[in-house]
């Protein structure tokens, strides 16, 4: 499933002293739901992303991290076909269904819209109230069916958007900064919810985050983007990578490592991860210090 295992995949071109060079981007695995090959996007002559290759396999959680302006949303939009490519190509497995939760969803308050009307829009006409209620229950928002979308709080809106994406029965969920505007408790709850959805449905998830300390413990792979792919691999491997430390500072790297090691698994004598029983992460560990 995890195509490059614990090994780091470095980007194939020269850009700085701390990145590995020379190892070519491997071809997309046969079970990839969606893959990008040498994708570049530029706007007004300015490169937003350059020569990015990635693939997402069925059932895996791939987290895309990078500083502001790294091109994370551009890459996501390119994968979804919303952004014209300057070069490279996007391949989708035929018939793959994608659920999308955009980074910003500011409903114009002049549009009257209830949650149930919103959920019914664009889903197959057979989607009944029962299915909507069940899906809202799955994301922890069963009481919102009759609520007005423009009056939802940030956390409620994220849950409704997630429910709407799930009603499309996606093979892949694309979540662009799903914890945007949530407090630390809300973030932790949202990450728990996302991994619960993967466990229950086996849906692959592409998750975008700028918050490096909080990359969820259940991420299978992390791809670190700074217009190009800086490094990618398992979370703990990326956190130890010099390119990661250079981008985000050693402090961030330590906090990240602490979080993954203490709240998901421990390591046995050989260094292999040993899962811990699921427990709610303490709030304290979610803050940076």
């Amino acid at each position: 499933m995890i195509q490059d295992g614990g090994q780091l995949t470095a980007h194939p071109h020269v850009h700085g002293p701390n990145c590995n060079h020379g190892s070519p981007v491997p071809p997309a695995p046969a079970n990839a739901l969606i893959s990008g090959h040498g994708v570049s996007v530029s706007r007004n002559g300015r490169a937003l992303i350059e020569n990015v290759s990635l693939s997402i396999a069925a059932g895996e959680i791939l987290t895309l991290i990078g500083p502001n302006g790294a091109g994370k949303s551009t890459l996501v939009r390119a994968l979804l076909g919303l952004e014209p490519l300057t070069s490279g190509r996007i391949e989708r497995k035929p018939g793959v269904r994608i659920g999308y939760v955009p980074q910003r969803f500011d409903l114009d308050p002049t549009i009257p819209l209830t949650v149930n009307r919103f959920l019914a829009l664009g889903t197959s006409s057979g989607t009944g109230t029962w299915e909507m209620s069940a899906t809202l229950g799955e994301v922890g928002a069963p009481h919102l069916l009759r609520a007005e979308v423009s009056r939802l709080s940030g956390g409620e809106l994220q849950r409704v958007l997630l429910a709407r994406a799930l009603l499309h029965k996606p093979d892949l969920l694309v979540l662009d900064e799903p914890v945007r505007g949530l407090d630390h408790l809300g973030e932790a709850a949202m990450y728990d919810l996302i991994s619960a959805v993967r466990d229950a449905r086996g849906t692959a998830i592409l998750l975008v985050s700028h918050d490096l300390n909080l990359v969820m413990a259940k991420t299978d792979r992390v791809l670190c983007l700074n217009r190009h792919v800086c490094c990618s691999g398992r979370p703990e491997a990326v956190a130890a990578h010099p390119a990661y430390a250079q981008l985000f500072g050693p402090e961030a790297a330590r906090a990240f490592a602490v979080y993954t090691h203490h709240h998901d698994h421990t390591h046995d004598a050989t260094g292999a991860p040993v899962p811990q029983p699921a427990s709610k992460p303490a709030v304290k560990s979610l803050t940076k210090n």
Partner: protein
Amino acid sequence: MEPFFVRALLAAIGLAIIAAPLGCFVVWRRMAYFGETIAQASLIGVAAGLALQSNLTLAVVLMTLAMAVMLMALERQRIVPVDSLLGTMHYVALALGIIATSQLSGPTVNVMGFLFGDVLAVSTPDLVMLAAAAVAVYGTLYWLWEPLLRLSIHSDLAAAEGVAVQRTRIVFTLLLALVIALAIKVVGALLAIAFLIIPAVAARPLSRTPETMAMFAIGIAVLSAVAGLYLSAAYDLPSGPSIVVAMAGFALGSMVYASVRSKTALTS
């Protein structure tokens, strides 16, 4: 009732039914100024139609469609903000229209008639045209409603889910230009956009879904058309402006109702 008054009534009601659902999208998509700019181009169409001695309605329709296409193309540029661009085009179109009509020889052109409309002068062929337009607008909206609504809610989400965003946007804009041209015939270039947006504004506080808002807008527009024409006949007032004032009355009432309701909801 006099036949001319029956025709006026039918024209105003027909236009109300055609314009109200489109007006909801104009409000949702914040296109009021866009529509206003299209409406101002109609005077150029009038002048061209008179100069070429062709059908005036056809000339106006062609001119509003041309303006809509031009604005869609110009919206893509990034040099000037869109509202400044619309402001510029709005006044350029008005100025050119006035210059063009002033240069026409022959019988004096009734510019006022085109700026404020004359619903009492509507002819039977005009009514037939309105009926045909009603069929075209509702036929198009039947398959455009859901994609257009999804586009209005969130255009990226709609595009990611497979809505043909660009095509939907273009068809809607052309439909809007057509309805504006028809509204000019009834209420004039200066008041045409009022017919689109005021019923939608009045319907918003009463509605919880887009569909109920469109229904309320149609109802309010029809009632306003009847009430406005009655006022205009009873007190010898200009007809188009009377309809617009009736619409504004509904909008005011609905906003007062909404604010009273939200206050009682807070205190109870």
